């Protein structure tokens, strides 16, 4: 097993600021926008972006939610059993502009599940997708991000590992090959 660094902490920081600015450009004051981190790993990215928007761009009232997709996955009974995580949505998404936030976009199946899961909380006005890493040529479904941090070419037995300071000790993205 070997791993190489895809993004360093400094690069991640620059990308996060760029993504925050892109969101700002399209959503202005965020009054009708809901940022939704996909559990488990999208939550860190969502929190980080919300923090940058609040502290550095003085956006007030960001609706930030976490969506667990475990019960909406399409591989139930077909592979390993995943533990459910907390869904935290203190608002209805009815008529809101929803932005799904996840760390890595790979097959697109998690986002497919999230698209179903979000229906339990109302009918959003539209849904966009933001990912830090977009793995090219690996999609099983016609799903593409609206905002992407970095596009990566990785073969199927490689894994992209995104680490966050608050959870894993440092901000770094690895490409791990078996």
């Amino acid at each position, binding site marked *: 097993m070997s791993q190489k660094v895809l993004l360093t902490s400094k690069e991640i920081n620059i990308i996060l600021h760029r993504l925050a600015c892109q969101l700002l450009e399209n959503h202005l004051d965020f009054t009708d926008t809901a940022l939704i981190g996909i559990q488990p790993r999208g939550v860190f990215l969502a929190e980080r972006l919300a923090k940058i928007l609040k502290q550095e761009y003085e956006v007030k009232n960001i609706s930030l939610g976490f969506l667990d997709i475990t*019960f909406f996955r399409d591989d139930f*009974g077909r592979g390993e*059993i995943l533990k459910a995580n907390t*869904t935290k949505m203190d608002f209805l998404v009815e008529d809101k502009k929803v932005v799904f936030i996840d760390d890595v976009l790979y097959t697109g199946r998690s986002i497919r599940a999230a698209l179903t899961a979000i229906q339990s909380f109302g009918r959003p006005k539209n849904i966009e997708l933001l990912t830090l890493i977009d793995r090219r040529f690996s999609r099983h479904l016609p799903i593409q991000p609206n905002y992407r941090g970095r596009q990566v070419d990785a073969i199927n037995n490689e894994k992209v590992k995104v680490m966050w300071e608050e959870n894993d000790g440092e901000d770094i993205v690895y490409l791990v090959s078996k």
Partner: protein
Amino acid sequence: MSELSVDHLLGIKYLNKKDIELIFETADHFKEVINRSIKKVPTLRDITIANIFFENSTRTRLSFELAEKRLSADVVNFSAGQSSVKKGETLIDTVNNILSMKVDMVVMRHPNPGAGIFLSKHVKAAIVNAGDGAHEHPTQALLDSFSIREKLGDVGGKNVVIVGDILHSRVALSNIFALKLQGANVKVCGPRTLIPKHIESLGVTVETDLRKALQWCDVANMLRVQNERMDISYFPSTREYTQQFGVNKELLDSLDKQIVIMHPGPINRGVEITSDVADSDQSIILHQVENGVAVRMAVLYLLASKIK
């Protein structure tokens, strides 16, 4: 990885502490789901579940059926009263006939203790015991503990008294196993005739003075007197039972502390508890019913995920 150590839920006796923790953590998530405006998730959409009830039930059956539907499973219902069981069909034949219609799980209530265990050895489906005679009623015990955990934060270290007809109660036995597994202290209280001999071997103590038992406990789980299972007289009269083992408001108010009142239902109002107790702030009876759906969803989800 997070999965149960068992393939069937036949009784609490076959579970370990980790299983109970996993069921509760999963139930927490399902409780959030059933409080959404859209209460349904598509998880079990390719699973078919048969609810087979050889004995009457309202709460348990409705609760299972709701849990199954909230998980998007296909559900078939069967009650012995309107079936070929009356024509002399055996249990295995009945169930195998149902299974040949491609059913993946069976939720069964049966008057004979051990019916679920017997079935699990002979048919290919995940079995959930919804009560077998006076033996076990595992999902009831799980939802009882889940409700205690929700109300008091933890089950471990709490003092729980189970009051009433311990002898005929599957709820009592499952509760004793579940509570002991989680480190609670358990007392049983009732007329001597309704307390099984050697029950102390399960690690519980016996108290025949209700006031003392209530004074000791944090939670009192009040059981119904199961007249339908009594072939002889176990106490002189219902009135005398109520006077000695019924809980009323005056008795509750005379204690030094606020205890939590539970009841698995159906309640015989005015016998084991009076109406003002059942409807008081100290009672969590209706929370138990709500939690029942979440806990059963968790059990079905975790068992279904082990079906290959």
